[in-house]
């Protein structure tokens, strides 16, 4: 199984673990991730403005590279996944954006959303299968109570992300179960960590992050996993009232597969 792989900037700097363990685990699962050559930043934040075409172009280049390679595109960072899927949806369904983006790009063949974008978790659930994953676990995380933190970007808008029910998701809990650990369901798992607001008003991000960690802790979690570098930053730096370890989901995956 060969997939085009888009790591994104943060995974080359602050979130090296997220990237490294994703690659190691993929290898253990027999999946080849081919990093897209000369990829650029996805844009970081999906531009909502309808007339803002230029900021979507780097994503279009990535999507088109995967198309030319003839692969589905896998990404692991929540934010990159969010931006790539939404831009891809625009290219498939929004004629205005599609036409203008293609006018800029001047590709040999116009891009119209042909690439299938998969989050790494979707790859595990829909391609590998959680039952299969369970069989490949060599080091089950038995007895470990792990809380999945979804944040907001991974699931919403649900119509475009198509990943899971945005209000009552289960993909990460099923993932935790497959690794042999016990998932902890808590009410604030799909709430915002504070995101970029920490730059403007840190107290607000602290309030949000503490709420998330407090909620997980109250349900007996020993550890929190996330797929998002920004969530990781907030939970670690702004979750000041709690001492709950936060790791990337790929790290516990690598641990369970014995490749950490």
């Amino acid at each position, binding site marked *: 199984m060969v997939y085009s792989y888009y790591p994104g900037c943060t995974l080359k700097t602050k979130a090296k673990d997220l990237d490294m363990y994703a690659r190691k685990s993929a290898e253990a699962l027999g999946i080849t991730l081919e990093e897209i050559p000369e990829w650029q930043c996805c844009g970081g934040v999906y531009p909502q403005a309808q007339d803002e075409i230029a900021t979507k172009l780097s994503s279009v280049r990535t999507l088109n590279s995967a198309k030319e390679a003839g692969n589905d595109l896998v990404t692991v960072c929540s934010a990159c996944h969010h931006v790539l899927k939404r831009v891809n949806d625009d290219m498939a369904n929004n004629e205005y954006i599609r036409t203008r983006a293609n006018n800029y790009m001047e590709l040999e063949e116009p891009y119209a959303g042909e690439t299938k974008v998969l989050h790494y978790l979707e790859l595990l659930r829909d391609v590998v299968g959680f039952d299969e994953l369970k069989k490949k676990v060599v080091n089950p995380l038995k007895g470990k109570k792990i809380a999945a933190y979804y944040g907001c970007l991974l699931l919403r808008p649900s119509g475009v992300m198509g990943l899971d*029910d*945005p*209000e*009552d998701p289960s993909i990460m809990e099923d993932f935790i179960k497959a690794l042999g650990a016990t998932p902890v369901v808590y*009410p*604030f798992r799909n709430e915002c960590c504070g995101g970029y607001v920490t730059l403007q008003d840190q107290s607000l991000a602290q309030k949000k992050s503490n709420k998330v960690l407090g*909620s997980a802790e*109250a349900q007996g979690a020993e550890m929190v996993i996330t797929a998002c570098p920004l969530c990781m930053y907030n939970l670690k730096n702004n979750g000041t009232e709690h001492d709950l370890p936060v790791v990337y989901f790929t790290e516990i995956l690598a641990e369970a597969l014995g490749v950490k």
Partner: protein
Amino acid sequence: MHKIGVFVCWCGSNIAATVDVKAVAEAASKEPCVVYATDYQYMCSESGQNLIIDAIKEHNLTGVVICSCSPRMHETTFRKAAQKAGLNPYMVEIANIREQCSWIHKDMAEATAKAIVLARAAIAKVQLNKPLIAGESEVTKRCLVIGGGIAGIQTALDVAEAGFPVDIVEKKPTIGGKMAQLDKTFPTLDCAACILTPRMVEAGAHENITLHTYSEVEEVSGFVGNFTVKIRKKARKVKMDLCTGCGLCTEKCPMKKQPNEFNMGLDKRGAIYIPFAQAVPKVPVIDVEACLKFKTGKCGICSKVCTAGAIDYEQQDEIIEQKYGAIVLATGFDQIKPTKFGELGYSQYPDVVTSLEYERLMNAAGPTKGHLLRPSDGKPPKEIVFVQCVGSRGQSCRDKSYCSKVCCMYTAKHAILTKDHYPDTNIHVFYIDERTPGKNFDEFYRRAVEQYGVDYIKGQVGKVYEENGKLMVQGSDLLANEQITLAADMVVLAAAIEPDKTARSLGTMLTASMDTNDFFTEAHAKLRPVESPTAGVFLSGMCQGPKDIPETVSQAGAAAVKVIGLLTKDKLLGNPCVAHSDEMLCNGCSQCARVCPYGAITYVDKEFRVPGPKRVETRRVAVVNEAVCQGCGACTVTCPSTAMDLKGFSNRQIMSEVDAICK
């Protein structure tokens, strides 16, 4: 040679403001065969009609073209006027220069040019019109009411009182519908069962009413005055004529683990059960999915304890066929299960309930015998949060776009009743707008606020979650402009109402049109609110749109009046614009019969004289039953040999219109 008169209506400023009516009349007067053309302010008024009548007489007109509003509006008016003047009514053609011209154009020159073209097409068509005589059909003096809730019951009673036999088909084992599940009714707080059950009993006992409960409409054919309906009477596995309704079988049934639908699944019932104490008919039904006898072949306790010998495990579904003159749709509604609103926790927390569930929790015949006890641990709740508009008035794919109309009032009712019985309970209501128009409605709501001190919060709820055994309700208080979190023992969701799921298949069967929300459409939103656009089909209650009990009962009565008006007639004038087949062209291919939605086309073998030594040959040709044909025209466009044609809309007439437009 025809003598045609053209009458251009101003419709006040509706047409005249956008179309130069004088120019249209002037242009029409130059068309072939037109001997008279004029314009007038209101052609449909009495003086307008007299103008037409006088012109027909004075100019010996043989055809009339009215340039006015849609034929759906006034075709009948103008046909009657022509008839008064001695002209065959089918020699009148309407050019729709209002809905299809003046209302949709802004530029006068363009609109006028288009109106002239439309008039020209109608003039071309009327030259090929032939006088038509409408046939008559008998009216079957019997009414079918589909749905046995308060709407269906009321319509049936009113029609039956006028002396016509009525059949009620109800899919549940008893009539009564949703109203039977309600506790008290706003704004008078009289008990729903107390006012409904006498009506149910009356319907059950009325000499002119036949109940088909636990039954469904299977097939409908025919047309106004002459419907033929197949009804499936599902096997109750209990003989109606022998059962005394003692209920012993329901007590002794060992399979008491089935969710009780009547109590919204909040308690259990047996595999053999009577839905509720006042059920009509009070005859149990066996749920074969749950019954041990049907699953394993063992048990049979109900049969053993039944002293009347009414249990019949071998009973099969029965199909009955009946003719009706009129059909009333009273299929009612359901409350949505708010499972799509994951943030409100309905699926996760047992103490988050819908308002209909709350209704059962308050009711003396409900699962808690009328004591307000929360489902999780059976404790009385002290803090209750009501959330309105769950799934109503929204724009997302989860929501209904419409207002469910009854929620504001029943939430106020829930609040008042709860405070009445348990004064130490604190009640909070999240609302978008309080909508309480109706007699004594706003006073009722104000009582909740002023007299009972219910805490109304303008805003919506974003999340419900559990913390330390409490349901935390996070919402926004828009008047205070702050985010608030309330700790509650119970949360009640005023979930949206939607039409009953069976409505769509019935709509298809009856060709009764529906809107995008699956509510049945009325023939005219203002002037024909209880009639479906399909003749002979009437609408009663929630199946047409959200409404409360008084409104439902009023509409049910109005539908009954329309039914009575129809059934009082002995004969109905048919539509002479029906299909007919040219035997000389028909090759007997059967394609027309296949597309006919009314089953109006049959085939006969007929002898035809032919040249040559054989002299005669027998050919299979189509014959149209004119009493059954509704003139839809599907056969005429299907026929490969152009043998099928529609009177009043013949292929030649339509082509001449097209030619006139393209000229």
